[in-house]
């Protein structure tokens, strides 16, 4: 799997998958429905090329997942793109402080959303030359 999508909202999952489908990236997605699932997935040896991380998640929040991943030497290299509805300044600042590689506010407009997500996926999967590629 190349992309780990951490998202609890089924609608947003559907929209995100549609956006990624635009470049045929949807088949590479593993879905985690909360932070605990995401960490479990990562700690069982999976190394996705990118993690699309929502912030507002049940059980373990996105910022906590981010902190765990970036605090773990084995996982630190995995790029994490925060994909969230929150444009609140404190969230942005905290995410970058914890080591997020990108921060994308989900637009309400569908077209913009499609563009943002698909381009992000394309960038990190295809264009970004990361470790182990």
């Amino acid at each position, binding site marked *: 799997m190349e992309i780990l999508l951490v998202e609890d909202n089924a*609608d947003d999952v559907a929209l995100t998958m549609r956006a990624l489908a635009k470049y045929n990236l949807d088949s590479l997605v593993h879905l985690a429905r909360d932070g605990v699932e995401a960490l479990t997935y990562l700690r069982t040896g999976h190394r996705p090329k990118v993690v699309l991380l929502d912030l507002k998640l049940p059980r373990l929040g996105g910022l906590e997942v981010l902190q765990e991943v970036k605090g773990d030497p084995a996982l630190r290299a995995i790029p994490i793109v925060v994909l969230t509805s929150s444009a*609140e300044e404190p969230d942005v600042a905290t995410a970058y402080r914890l080591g997020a590689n990108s921060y994308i506010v989900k637009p309400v*407009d569908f077209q913009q959303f499609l563009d943002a997500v698909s381009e992000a996926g394309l960038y990190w999967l295809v264009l970004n030359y990361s470790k182990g590629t």
Partner: protein
Amino acid sequence: MPKPRWHAAWDRLSIVTKVPLTFAVLLTLVLGSMTAAAYAVVRRSAVSAATAQLERVARQMAGVLAEEIESDGPMLRVLVTEPAIRDYLRRGDRAEGEAVQALLREYVAAREDRLFSVELWSRSGERLLSVGEEQPPLPAEQARILVRETEPATGARTGPVRLAGETLAYPVARAVIEGESLYGFVVERRRFTTAPDELRERSALLGASAHLLLGRRDGTLWTDLRTKTDGPPVAVRLDAPQRYERHGEEVLARSVAVGSAPWVLTLEMPWPDVVGAATRFLYAALALSTVLVAAGAAVGSTLSRQNTLPIKRVTEAAELMAQGRPVPRVMLDREDEIGRLASSFNRMADQVEHGREHLEQLVERYRLLFEENPVPMWLFDLETLSILDVNESAIQRYGWTREEVLRMNLRDMRPPEDVPDFLASLTSTGDGWERPGTKRHWRKDGSLLEVEVTRHYFWLDGRRVGLTAALDVTARRAAERAVEESEQALRRANAALEARVQERTAALQATNQELEAFSYSVSHDLRAPLRAIVGFSNILQEDHGAELSPEARQHLETIARNARQMGQLIDDLLRFSRMGRHVMTTGTVDMAAVAAEVAEEARRQDPQRYVEIVVGALPPVWGERSLLRQVFANFIENSMKFTRDRSPARIEVGAVPRDGEVVYFVRDNGVGFDMRYSDKLFGVFQRLHRTEDFPGTGVGLALVKRIVARHGGRVWAESEEGKGATFYFSLPREPRRA
């Protein structure tokens, strides 16, 4: 050490007495000792002269007597050789008695003037024959002595003298010897031929009072040549003068032997006569000394008077001065120490009078200071606490009369419970002054005064006294208490207010936190459903558009548009609310650059339109760049929106400096608005145009107003409907004080 009484008495004496007394005593001592010494010498010489003279005269007299005794010696020597007498004695031949008697009678007759009789004595001293005026026989003892003394000798021997009537009689014996044989003795019974007066004349050489005595050596008879008399009361010495008392009279006596006779001649001289000259000398010397002492005392007196009288004048003047009476100046025409004393005294008197005047002024000044002082004052005895003096102000303030106050004790002035404190405050200090704080004093009418007391302690006429000044602070205290109470009330009110403020602040903070939580929820939870609505509307259209009727597609489009509109609204609202909590980061902002940047962006947004955007000279200001950028962005976006139908559309950005601030404006030639509603322009959700005509949320200008207000400026707008609008905002040149 106490002075002896004489010393004290001496100290009391005036100098006028002391000086002559000293002179007299000194002279007396000198003259007295000289006189005593001289007298001793004179007396000694007088005594020795008298002694010598006594001895000389006594020896002369003794010589006269001895001469008489010896004078008839040859006759008797011849007589004893008469054979008849020898025979008579040898044989005791009475027969020859006649011839012997005749011989002797003739012998006596020839010398009748000096012989009473001639006697013939046996070898044993027995009287055998007496021729002439018969004399009583010598007592046996005398006869025996005479015989014994005469017997071995060849010369005559004189026997003891005796009184015969008014004459002195004495025997003279001579042994009748032939070869070695003693036959007996011839004894003449003589009488004194030398007249006593003749002897007395001789003694008169010594003065009339000289006394002549003649006595036997064994002291059995003493005579003054006329009658029997007492002898010297002491054992007579022949080798030295003697001094004794006889008949109540002290005499100097000199005794000498008279020839070989067993007689003593004593010449007595009354002691006063002996030392008469010395005594007279003494008297004269004493008289002279007295005169000298008197003269000395007189001189001393004069001298001391001469010097002490001026001193006395100074002294009397000084005594006057001491009594505080007018002092006469002492005028002395001399320049010695006394003159200098007088002039010094005069200067002192001047100074004292000057000082006294000064003192009187001072006293008057302080009397006024006490008596006329508006502060109540009194003077009290520290021992008895009685009031000694009080000023008028105290009388007025406390209500008692002066007489009542002067009978009062300080204890009576205050409530009994204050008395122990009062006494303690008194004993705590000695001299100096103290301010024991606020005290309570009674007035006569029974009300209490609160006074601030100051006490000074000092000595007055040997007593320790205190001067109290009692400032009445009753009214001030009441005012202070009132102020204190109102201050406390104010503090309570302040505290209550503070509490309410804190309460409200806490409430406000809670509200704020709720608001933040709300904003967060909005941004997350409200946007997600909108996104779903929009997204699935689009998916529906994309995936199933062909199956839908044109009307259904139109409905889908409406749903999506409204959802987008709501998303926009939420975003604007969140921005607006964040603005209220935003912490500004300020600096100098190049407004021209910001405006140009925004204009460029606006053109890029709608590259198909031709819009003329002119940016004039914009002075820089102090503020946060991103916020000010948002202001321009809002205004320019607005203008772009409302000039959409204009061709050419024109937007002008400029600035007008005014005092202390800069007014920026964005002017367009758009549709404008109705000035009647201009007050609604900057309110939240207030719109002057229908959304169908010009889309918008009604939040943009409200946000602008809020940003400008945060910078200390104002916003306003001018317009004429259909002819464009001008939006102004003013910003202070200098950074606002936070």
